[in-house]
């Protein structure tokens, strides 16, 4: 009895199939790129939509990054001012200073004596000579304590403040960090908002690509039927569509990156002016190269996902009849 060849398998040897598998992938990848060029207007429109959709979350990411960068320098600026009870001798103040310096929570301590405080006040307040008519110096001595890095967070600094206020020489202390806490809460809110908006726009990208691929599938309905008739597998038929989705993603991602750079360039001047008024040397940061790669990878994944979902849904329904 002759051996029956298995009719439900490929006739080519495995090694040849593997090599051709990769060659086909490259060819199909390239040809779907060419396919996009053949209908430039609709392709460019789709890519532009993707670029704009992706640029918004990316822009928000840049915003958060820069806001964090700016507040980073403020974060550690938490300073505790201790107002010393009047009538304390210079000696007891010096002993307070040495005790506080020994705290492991404390980074630096500086001391402004009553005289120095008055002098500074005269210089900065503009009352000038008027103050010299006072019989007595009304200002208390001030000790400024900078917490160590570990205690510079709002909660840490507050703990330190409580501890310092227990010292008998200290009248009361002030920690001006409420605004910092508010800022941090604001930043957290901003970050969450960015995340939510990004999720929505990512969904939009998937839907846009899914719909574009659906139209492409409908346009090539007869071709798909014929391919199925002559024995094309689903994988073979869907591959060009998946590559098309990936190309859309890649180009949309690069477009988003370009939009961001233009935006940053446009805002840079205005921001430098604003920061200059605050005496800050910060410059606005755009997306780094690593972030560009991440953006493009994410976009191409979204492109693949969108077209995959579309292909799964629509390719199966096209059968020769």
């Amino acid at each position, binding site marked *: 009895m002759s051996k029956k060849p298995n009719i439900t398998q490929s006739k080519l040897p495995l090694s040849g199939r593997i090599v051709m598998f990769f060659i086909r992938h490259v060819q199909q990848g390239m040809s779907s790129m060419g396919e996009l060029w053949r209908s430039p207007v609709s392709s460019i429109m789709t890519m532009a939509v993707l670029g704009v959709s992706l640029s918004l979350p990316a822009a928000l990411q840049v915003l958060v990054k820069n806001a964090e960068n700016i507040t980073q320098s403020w974060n550690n600026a938490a300073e505790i001012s201790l107002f010393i009870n009047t009538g304390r001798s210079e000696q007891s103040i010096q002993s307070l200073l040495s005790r506080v310096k020994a705290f492991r929570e404390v980074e630096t301590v500086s001391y402004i004596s009553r005289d120095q405080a008055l002098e500074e006040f005269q210089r900065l307040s503009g009352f000038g000579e008027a103050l010299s008519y006072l019989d007595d110096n009304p200002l208390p001595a001030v000790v400024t304590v900078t917490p160590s890095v570990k205690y510079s967070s709002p909660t840490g600094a507050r703990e330190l403040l409580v501890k310092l206020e227990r010292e008998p020489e200290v009248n009361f202390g002030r920690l001006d960090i409420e605004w910092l806490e508010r800022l941090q809460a604001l930043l957290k809110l901003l970050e969450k908002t960015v995340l939510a908006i990004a999720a929505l726009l990512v969904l939009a990208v998937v839907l846009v690509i899914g719909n574009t691929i659906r139209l492409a599938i409908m346009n090539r309905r007869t*071709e798909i039927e014929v391919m199925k008739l002559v024995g094309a597998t689903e994988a073979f038929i869907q591959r060009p569509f998946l590559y098309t989705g990936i190309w859309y993603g890649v180009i949309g991602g690069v477009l988003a990156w370009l939009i961001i750079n233009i935006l940053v360039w446009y805002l840079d001047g205005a921001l430098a002016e604003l920061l200059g008024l605050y005496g800050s040397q910060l410059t606005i940061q755009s997306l780094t190269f690593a972030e560009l790669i991440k953006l493009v990878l994410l976009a191409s994944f979204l492109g693949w996902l969108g077209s995959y979902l579309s292909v799964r849904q629509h390719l199966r329904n096209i059968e020769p009849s």
Partner: protein
Amino acid sequence: MDVNFHLRQGEMAFLTGHSGAGKSTLLKLITVIERATAGKVSINGHNIANVDSKHVPYLRRNIGMIFQNHHLLMDKSVFDNIALPLVIEGFSHGEIRKRVAGALDMVGLYGKERHLPIMLSGGEQQRVGIARAIVNKPPLLLADEPTGNLDPKLSMDILRLFETFNDSGTSVLIATHDLGLIARMKYRTFTLRQGRMLGGESTDREVMR
């Protein structure tokens, strides 16, 4: 449908009957475009009535199919149309060129690779369809009304073409209602009438080859 017939390996036969008798449906059952609700369709001893749908593409690669409206891709060149089964199967570029040239030569369209199907006559388009069906040398060739739109002389040419494939060992089943054509050739004829087989001998149930 109550049909019992057996097409032997290397045999050429006609399938005939009025429109709506079930010729096309029968061919669709063999190529798993439609599935039988009862009974058995087998090729080479493999029952294909309930073959897994992911194996269907590989099954179809073993069957050359020719259609009345030839199902060509109108925006692709003749070469690309004929090369499609080979591309799908993953042949190398050199091999594809060689085989497409061979297939074009067989159907008498050598030198028209670069033409678009629209530039060809009806008979030539049908030949392109035939070239696509035989380019990967399938052991079984099915033709659904291959001469439907052609005049008698062209029809005869097409049938002669099928004979040459049959001579080289390919099994051929041609569905047609052109009884005059059949009468001129001495091949077995299966006649379908309202879903029943008349004539032709019955062996298994519905068994091919």
